[in-house]
């Protein structure tokens, strides 16, 4: 569901990077090997104070960048995982009705009959359960938090429309309570897997970036940094194999996350190099559709494997 985690633990805010190169360096220092284009839009989003809208296939590192950014900048990460039917009470705030009921009964028992006093008492801050969007608007000693709105395409259009309002003013109006406005707008990162098209109005307020699969050399670097102890030969073969798979016409191409999973799986199995046997056994880490797995049998597998294991 929704959770807010403080990844840094430290309350020391880092100065924002002053150039694209500095941003690239910052991400790399935390093990996120970004394409320069992604570092550029991230840098711009921070400089311009605009939300960053990342769209792309599953497992290309959209969510990861928010985590890395919050850790690198020493900011709190607040994550809102979207799902169908996400509403104000689970995204913004909710009144703690049970506690309010008790408060009313207590007031009755004590003989308080001042109704206005009672209603202002029970709609106070302490009876409010703050959900991620409201948390993101609250001042933070470490600086404005990183707000990750994950998989926005899973929420419905109504929520999107609501979000528009928040992203333009960074304030929320609560009828019983008043308006909460962020002193400094949070760093907002929105991700989408494109299971539906997000409305133009929302995209217009953001900087948009399509996160693509990485090139072979970058992917190799990612595997090496994420799967420590993997042999150079195996990592090279793994990346070549995955890159070849992406050129095939699969229903769901493997993302970087799958590459890392597969490399980890292979090194767990102490594989030295790719053989038809070991690939066949572990294909489930790469391909997630039965049709795709069926297509990867026999000749196709041999062909791709040959491509991946040739020594040039």
């Amino acid at each position, binding site marked *: 569901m929704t959770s807010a985690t403080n990844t840094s633990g430290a309350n020391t805010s880092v100065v924002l990077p002053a150039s694209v190169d500095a941003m690239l360096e910052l991400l790399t220092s935390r093990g996120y090997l970004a394409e320069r284009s992604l570092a550029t839009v991230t840098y711009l989003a921070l400089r311009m104070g605009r939300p960053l809208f990342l769209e792309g296939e599953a497992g290309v590192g959209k969510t990861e960048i928010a985590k890395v950014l919050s850790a690198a900048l020493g900011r709190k990460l607040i994550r809102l995982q979207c799902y169908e039917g996400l509403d104000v009470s689970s995204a913004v705030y909710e009144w703690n009705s049970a506690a309010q009921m008790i408060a009313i009964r207590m007031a009755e028992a004590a003989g308080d009959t001042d109704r206005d006093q009672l209603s202002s008492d029970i709609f106070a801050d302490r009876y409010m359960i703050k959900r991620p969007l409201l948390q993101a608007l609250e001042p933070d000693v470490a600086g404005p938090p990183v707000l990750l709105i994950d998989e926005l*395409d899973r929420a419905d259009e109504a929520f999107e429309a609501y979000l528009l309002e928040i992203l333009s003013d960074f304030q929320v109006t609560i009828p019983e309570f008043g308006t909460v406005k962020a002193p400094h707008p949070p760093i907002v990162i929105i991700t989408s897997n494109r299971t539906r098209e997000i409305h133009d109005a929302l995209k217009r307020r953001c900087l948009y970036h399509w996160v693509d699969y990485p090139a072979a050399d970058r992917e190799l670097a990612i595997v090496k940094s994420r799967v420590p102890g993997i042999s150079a030969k195996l990592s090279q073969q793994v990346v070549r194999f995955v890159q070849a798979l992406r050129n095939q016409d699969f229903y769901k191409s493997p993302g970087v996350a799958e590459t890392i999973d597969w490399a980890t799986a292979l090194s767990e199995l102490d594989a030295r190099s790719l053989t038809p046997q070991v690939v066949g056994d572990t294909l489930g880490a790469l391909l997630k559709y039965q049709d795709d797995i069926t297509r990867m049998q026999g000749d196709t597998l041999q062909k791709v494997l040959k491509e991946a294991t040739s020594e040039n």
Partner: protein
Amino acid sequence: MAINHLAPDKTEQFADNIVGFARALRAAGMPVGPGAVIDAMNALPVIEIGNRADVFTTLEAIFVKRHEHALIFRQAFNLFFRASEEWKHMLDSVPLPDQAKKKPQAGSRRVQEAMSQPKMTETPQHQEHDLRLSVSDKEILQKKDFAQMSAAEITEALRAIERMRLPQAELLTRRRQPDPRGLRLDMRRTLRASLRTGGDIIDLHRLGRIEKPAPIVALLDISGSMSEYTRLFLHFLHAVGDARKRVSVFLFGTRLTNVTRALRQRDPDEALASCSAAVEDWAGGTRISASLHNFNKLWARRVLSQGAIVLLISDGLEREADSRLAFEMDRLHRSCRRLIWLNPLLRFGGFEAKAQGIKMMLPHVDEFRPVHNLSSIQELITTLSRPLPPHHRSLIRPAA
């Protein structure tokens, strides 16, 4: 040219003109009420009537309430108030401008027809041609020009839209709204209501789930063998898209084109014109299997994720019918809530699924219906309006 001083009879004629003009606009499909006519009468004496541009601006400000109508208004104005010596009452016969050399603008035929003598023409019945079983192999890359839609057809279409009872209760969303018979308590409203009585009375407020019509995704075949119907279907989809928000439309011949945005324009003529601009292979051959493959790969996840109903509008005449076609159909079937195949060939009484492609596709559809004229479109609307049957699929599929 200029009318500086209106004599009393002129004023009368002028009032006639405005009324006539308003009627012409109405006939061309614009909603113009008597209130607007009165406004126009009151507004025109205030401005200088000799200035045509001012008159245009004034009348436009009064009669045009939606941007989509601006085009129709402009044409109607130009036809009606010719820059002639005197203002003629032109409601009965409008000399049509010579447009043999240039392509008529979208909407112009409607305006002209609306202004010329009203003919009570029925929508022409479609001729039953022989089946054109030959699918041209070479891709005809041409910009097909839509025959402009006539006012009679528009009226007919509009009537059809009015009769539409589009599905209301189909998909239960997870969003909730106040509902006295709902199952969940709305604690917030309950509390606020009980506070009015100082907490003495606790009146329970409930929440129920909101129902929303399912999105519709239409895949429309525009190959040569379908050309007689393409325009009609596009009009239908345009109408459906007006009535419900979530309608995506794809056209396929030898390639797949998403025309959802082009169809969003409110004026059907404009919408169709931009559709034809977007598509490059009108009336070429069909490659159903390749188009379906592209749809499944590039679009299915993006438009089918919300429990969509798919309308596949095609005659199923596929030259390259092989197992791939069955495979792609199966995939499409499994990734949508309901797959309805609309086939104009079904209008023939003795139609049998002989063509290889049709045999391949049939096992993978939930419904197979004729669609070739307004009445079958009406039937389709009726079908779409029925509550969907419970969503169950047999796990054992017939072998293709």
